[in-house]
C-alpha cells in the first residue's frame, strides 16, 4: 500500500475522532394576523442547569442601534441562565431570525461553539419567543459522547415544530 502523505492522513482521520451533533430546528408556519419571526436560543445545559455551550441565538440583528437586543430577555430561560452574561452579538453563535421551515445545524466536538464537552449527561434546550406571539421551550436529554449513532427528538406545540438531534460518536 502506498503511504499517504501526512496531511492526507490527517484529513481522513479527523472526522473519525470528532464526535458531532446534527440538529434540525423546525419553525412552524403560523396563520396569525400579525406574524413576526421568533427569537430562538439553542444551548446545552448541565444537570445543575449551568450552560455548557451556547449553540445559536437568532434575533433581530439588523435593527438600528442594536434595538433587537431589547427583546432578548423574552427568551427568559436562556436570558437567566446565560444571555444576560453575554455581550451581543456572540461570535459564531448569534445570527438573524429565521423564517418558517426546517433549519439544519451541525456542531463538531472540539470546535466552537460546541467546544469540548466533558463526558456526561446533558440537555439540549431550544427556546423560542415571538413578538405578539407565544413562548415555548423544548428539552432533549442526551448522554455525551454517544457510543453509537443516536437519534433523539422533541415536538413543539406552538412556537416550535419538530426538533431532531442526531449524535454521532
Amino acid at each position, binding site marked *: 500500500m502506498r503511504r499517504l502523505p501526512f496531511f492526507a492522513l490527517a484529513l481522513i482521520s479527523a472526522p473519525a475522532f470528532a464526535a458531532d451533533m446534527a440538529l434540525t430546528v423546525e419553525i412552524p408556519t403560523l396563520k396569525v394576523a400579525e406574524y413576526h419571526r421568533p427569537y430562538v436560543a439553542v444551548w446545552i445545559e448541565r444537570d445543575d442547569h449551568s450552560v455548557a455551550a451556547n449553540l445559536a441565538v437568532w434575533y433581530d440583528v439588523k435593527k438600528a*442601534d442594536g434595538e*433587537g*437586543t*431589547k427583546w*432578548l430577555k423574552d427568551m*427568559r430561560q436562556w*436570558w*437567566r441562565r446565560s*444571555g*444576560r452574561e453575554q455581550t451581543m452579538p456572540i461570535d459564531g453563535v448569534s445570527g438573524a431570525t429565521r423564517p418558517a421551515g426546517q433549519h439544519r445545524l451541525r456542531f463538531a466536538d472540539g470546535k466552537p461553539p460546541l467546544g469540548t464537552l466533558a463526558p456526561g449527561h446533558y440537555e439540549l434546550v431550544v427556546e423560542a419567543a415571538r413578538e405578539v406571539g407565544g413562548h415555548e421551550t423544548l428539552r432533549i436529554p442526551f448522554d455525551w459522547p454517544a457510543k453509537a449513532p443516536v437519534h433523539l427528538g422533541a415536538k413543539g406545540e406552538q412556537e416550535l415544530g419538530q426538533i431532531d438531534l442526531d449524535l454521532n460518536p
Partner: protein
Amino acid sequence: MKHVLVRAALCAALVLPAAAQAHKMWMVPSATVVSGDDAWVTVDAAVSNDLYYPDHFPAQLDQLAITAPDGSAVKAENPWTGKYRSTFDLPVPQKGTYRIALVNQGLFASYELEGKKQRWRGKADELKTGIPAGASDVQVSEMASRVETFVTQGKPGGDALKPTGKGLELVPVTQPNDLVTGEKATFRLLLDGKPAPNLKVVAIAGATRYRDSQDEMDTTTDADGTFAFTFPKAGMYWVNASTEDGKTSVKEAKRRRVAYTATLEVLPE
C-alpha cells in the same frame, strides 16, 4: 332584622386585623428584567385596597429615591400625579440592579382641642407649629416606611441594594429580579441596619380583582432576619412587613412604626 345585620357587620370590621383593612402602597414597574442598552421602564405608584388597581390615592413622588447600580441617585423622567396614581419613567442604561423607593419619614399626632379629637401628620420640624397651643392629650408617634421595587438591566448586581441603615430594609440573598415559580426566594430584613428577627412577612399576588380570596402567604423572619417564599404562580407579588418600637428620632414621639413593602416580579420557569 336590619339592625342585627348592621351590628354584625360593624363587629366584624372591628375584629378584623389591622392589616386587612389597611390600604396598600405600591409601585409597579412595566418590566423588572430588561435587555438592550436603551431600555426604559415606566412605573405606576399608588395607594389602594386591591393589587394593583389604582382606585384610592396616588403616591407622592417627592418621596421618590431611585438608586442606579453604581450607587448614584437617579431622577425620574416624566413624573405625573393624577387622581388615583402617580407615574414616572426611568431610563435604565447601566448594567445591574436599580432600586426604586418611596421613602416616607414623618410624625403622626392626635390631640384634643375644645373637647374634640383631632389628628395631625407632618415632618418633625413642623410639629411645634402644627399642633395648636391649647391642645391637650397630645400623642405623637413616628412613622418610617419604605416602598420599593427593582429593575435589572442585564445581570443582577451593583451597589443600589446596599442598606442605608435606616428603618426596615430588604437585603437580597436571592436577587429580587431573579425570581421564578417553584424556586425558593430568600431575603433578609434589616431594622436600622441590624437583622430584624421574628417579624411576620406577608406576600400577596397581584390581580386580586380576579379571584375571590387574598391568598395571602406569610412567614416569619428567623434570628438572622432571613425569610423565604416559594412563589406558586408567576406575577407581581406585594411583600410587606412592619413592626413597632420605641426608637424614635424626636423626643415628643414615644412610639415608632416601621414598615417595608416590595413589589417583586416572579417569572414562569
